[in-house]
């Protein structure tokens, strides 16, 4: 039986829900909740307008088909699951592909300054893994522009008062209350394991406080900082995902980590140079002569090796990222044919990404944002000089396990409380932090889409869950909030008292180095074993850190110790998952197991935390094949089987144009043969 009132608890309190994270997924979830009449407390480590979504550059996919290519959501679905090497559950992907045109139109209505065609329509460009123009874009800072649009809509809800279920406006009770500069610490769970709220810490005053909530959504992004330097923002430590995982949430496909082929090195960060550079015609090459002395711009065409175009004549420079990154790695690490450095006399791990042949006016209109980054950080003009780039860790396809409810048409049942529900009742996850849409490899420009679509699904799911919740969190007694608050306060105080020898930032550097070297593009079991041993060693050493700061205000040193511990927990999930999966699929590549092995591994890796169950007193990981969880009084049984009911798995080969979808022959010239291995089962 549901609680008496949907809007108020028995004690007369407004029944709010909480969203953690104010990137695209968190903001979209918030907007959808507001539209459903559910008031939201929005927590974010940083002002939401500075969330990591700003870093997305190239664009957002939607099969609007305005260029006469015959694109459709069906092709988008097929190419996405093929690009992900069939590890994604297909109903959510179908839902996303179907919703994509509507999402882009919505963003347009919100005022996103998308680039336009001469007729005033949205312009679309090409991206990896497809032959179609499917990607809407706002210059080369699309993520920033999308984030701003949603941020603005949420800001509007900060000025709107809540109306109860009888339509009475409650003055001063805003639809959205923001808690910016608050760091998520833990969920508050009741005796039955149901989410009742959260504990968070104000990173300025260091106050630790519990907040009741009828449901909680984590939308806190990926864990790129586990790898030390990556294209991720410094806030992407995965700390919230790790915290709820340690409280019992299942973590899925952690080993599926995307390495983006084109980034520029930096001492603090590896900065992304968007795939859109290639979408607009940019070309990857190395000099044919590995000892080439001339500058890139001076090497004539005939002396250049366009190795991607050579090997993949159909998709060329726009093969999916896992493939492009592996080819670059092969060239540089194994072929020693990276750009020759005349100063050091060595072949650097760098290749050229060249846009100098594209008219400057077009570059300025479509790619200025990324070319500006290159120019500012490398102090070299990319309009005149081929850019020097190398792969960098970029995105986590894996994340918190979330459920979905399949509709009769193959998509999702909108409003089902199962959608985006984790296995902890009342806890939802949306965005990069979930594992749902990308399988073993994400296609470019699908992440902005999946974040927004996840929000569109999660908001209604949480609204249904709240409406059916038997007892509001505001009516829960027994001091669970006080207890949770006390527990977190004690943990914080314990960190402040740590006086060991180790510097936490140095431990993080070692963690990143180990993960980056052996758990990214190429994975060897013997080397991963060493990484796992290293993680155990670092875990033990974190117990002997000396906190660098004991101040009572804006103490970043103490917070970092907690983030570091949480990163180590996730690192183990990622590395052990990679160790277990003896096959090659998408971004997960083992030279010793070169083939995809559907018989044994067409399944979701499901990791459960095992406190103290690892080596030498460290925590361990349990990998399970199925789990049961409860939702609104029902027990739900789920397994690690992947729903491949819409597009039958087939071998993944990008050498042939149109391989990703039988219907997607795209821009192939007349006379080129198109021979997909086997048409997708559901293609029409």
């Amino acid at each position, binding site marked *: 039986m549901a609680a008496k009132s949907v809007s108020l608890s028995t004690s007369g309190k407004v029944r709010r829900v909480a969203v953690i994270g104010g990137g695209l997924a968190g903001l*979209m979830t918030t*907007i*959808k909740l507001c*539209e459903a009449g559910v008031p939201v407390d929005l927590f974010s480590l*940083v*002002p939401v*307008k*500075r969330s*990591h979504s*700003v*870093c997305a550059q190239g664009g957002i996919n939607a099969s609007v088909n305005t260029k006469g290519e015959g694109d459709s959501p069906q092709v988008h679905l097929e190419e996405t699951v093929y690009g992900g090497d069939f590890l994604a559950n297909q109903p959510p992907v179908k839902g996303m592909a179907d919703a994509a045109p509507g999402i882009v*139109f*919505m963003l*347009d*209505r*919100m*005022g996103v*300054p998308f680039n*336009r*065609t*001469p007729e*005033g*329509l*949205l312009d679309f460009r090409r991206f990896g893994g497809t032959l179609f123009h499917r990607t809407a874009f*706002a*210059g080369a800072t699309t993520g*920033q*522009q999308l984030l701003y649009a949603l941020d*603005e*809509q949420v*800001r509007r809800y*900060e000025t709107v008062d809540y109306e109860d279920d009888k339509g009475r406006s409650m003055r001063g009770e805003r639809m959205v209350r923001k808690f*910016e500069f608050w760091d998520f610490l833990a969920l508050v769970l009741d005796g039955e394991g149901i989410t009742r709220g959260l504990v968070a810490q104000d990173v*300025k005053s260091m106050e630790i406080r519990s907040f009741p909530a009828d449901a909680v959504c984590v939308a806190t992004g990926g864990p790129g900082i586990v790898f030390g330097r990556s294209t991720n*923002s*410094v806030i992407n430590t995965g700390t919230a995902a790790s915290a709820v995982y340690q409280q019992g949430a299942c973590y899925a496909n952690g080993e599926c980590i995307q390495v983006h082929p084109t980034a520029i*090195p*930096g*001492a*603090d*960060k590896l*900065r*992304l140079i968007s795939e859109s550079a290639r979408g607009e015609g940019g070309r990857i090459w190395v000099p044919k002569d590995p000892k080439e002395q001339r500058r890139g711009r001076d090497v004539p065409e005939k002396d250049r090796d366009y190795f991607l175009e050579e090997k993949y004549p159909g998709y060329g420079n726009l093969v999916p990222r896992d493939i492009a990154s592996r080819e670059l790695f092969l060239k540089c690490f194994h072929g020693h044919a990276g750009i020759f450095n005349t100063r050091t006399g060595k072949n650097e791990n760098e290749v050229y990404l060249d846009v100098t042949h594209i008219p400057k006016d077009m570059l300025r*209109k479509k790619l200025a944002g990324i070319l500006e*980054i290159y120019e500012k*950080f*490398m*102090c070299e003009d990319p309009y005149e000089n081929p850019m020097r780039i190398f792969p960098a860790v970029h995105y986590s396809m894996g994340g918190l396990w979330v459920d979905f409810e399949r509709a009769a048409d193959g998509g999702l049942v909108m409003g089902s409380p199962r959608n985006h529900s984790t296995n902890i009742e009342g806890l939802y996850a949306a965005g990069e932090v979930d594992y749902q849409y990308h399988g073993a490899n994400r296609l470019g420009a699908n992440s902005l889409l999946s974040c927004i679509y996840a929000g*569109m699904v999660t908001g209604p799911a949480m609204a249904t869950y709240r409406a059916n919740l038997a007892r509001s969190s505001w009516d829960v007694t027994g001091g669970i909030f006080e207890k949770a608050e006390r527990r977190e306060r004690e943990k914080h105080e314990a960190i402040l008292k740590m006086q060991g020898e180790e*510097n936490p*930032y*140095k431990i993080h*550097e070692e963690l990143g180095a180990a993960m980056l070297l052996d758990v990214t593009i190429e994975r060897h079991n013997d080397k991963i074993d060493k990484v796992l041993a290293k993680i155990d060693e670092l875990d033990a050493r974190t117990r002997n850190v000396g906190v*660098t*700061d*004991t*101040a009572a*205000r*804006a103490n970043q*040193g103490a917070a970092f110790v907690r983030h570091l511990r949480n990163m180590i927990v996730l690192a183990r999930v990622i590395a052990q998952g990679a160790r277990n999966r003896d096959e090659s699929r998408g971004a997960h590549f083992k030279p010793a197991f070169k083939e995809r092995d559907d018989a044994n591994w067409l399944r979701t890796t499901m990791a459960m935390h095992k406190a103290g169950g690892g080596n030498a007193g460290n925590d361990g990981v349990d990998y399970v094949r199925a789990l049961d969880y409860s939702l609104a009084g029902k027990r739900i049984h789920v397994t690690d089987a992947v729903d491949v009911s819409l597009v039958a798995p087939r071998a993944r080969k990008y050498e042939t144009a149109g391989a990703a979808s039988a219907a997607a022959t795209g821009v192939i010239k007349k006379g080129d043969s198109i021979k997909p291995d086997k048409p997708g089962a559901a293609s029409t």
Partner: protein
Amino acid sequence: MAKTITLKIQRQDAADRPETRRWETFSVEWQPQMNIISTLMEIQKNPVTTAGKRVPPVVWESVCLEEVCGACTMVINGRVRQACTALVDQLAPHGETITLQPMTKFPLVRDLMVDRARMFADLKKVKAWVQVDGTYEIGPGPRQSQDNQDVAYPLSRCMTCGCCLEACPQVNDWSAFIGPSAINQVRLFNMHPSGAMHAAERLETIMGAGGIADCGKAQNCVEVCPKEIPLVDSIAEMGRATTKHMLFSWILK
């Protein structure tokens, strides 16, 4: 001997503890492509001053490290800018000492971190949004020319970083001036076809005290804007629009 970078950093434990304000000097080893963020990260790993004193690492704010989020804004060698794009080789080609200070126009949190909440509150004040009917599938947005996008997109790249407020002489403890960034947002939303339907409401928010009339035309804002947003043009354009709006509403009374 390895090349080193010397940083002189202004520190303070909290806004209400001015007695803790101090300068501390650190020296870190040079690395290729080093920016101010990476020097601060090096200090975290070994927070010892050149005088040999172990101190808490410097507190600063940062997120994206590629100048799209606006977080790491601070005063570097006397000029307000983002720390991520402040490259050491350009700031100190001959090993000069680099000075870091927090912005002065916002309440201090600690060391180099300030609280820019007022900027986000101002976005509420000027209604910086398009009032959409909802997020439902109700078809495409209004058609717009690429020329329109050419003007709107640069305006829309404002990161709310605060450089323009920091550099503006009219933004100070004695004035309520809203500053260039919020006025630029009024221009952005008033030029959007649907946003324009609520143009008058937005204009009215910048017509009173602390509004557009407080601009002293020093033009510092456009000098320091990292995204080269034509802030002076935006202020001029909104100046004309508010005047027009005032006259019309007076004539029509």
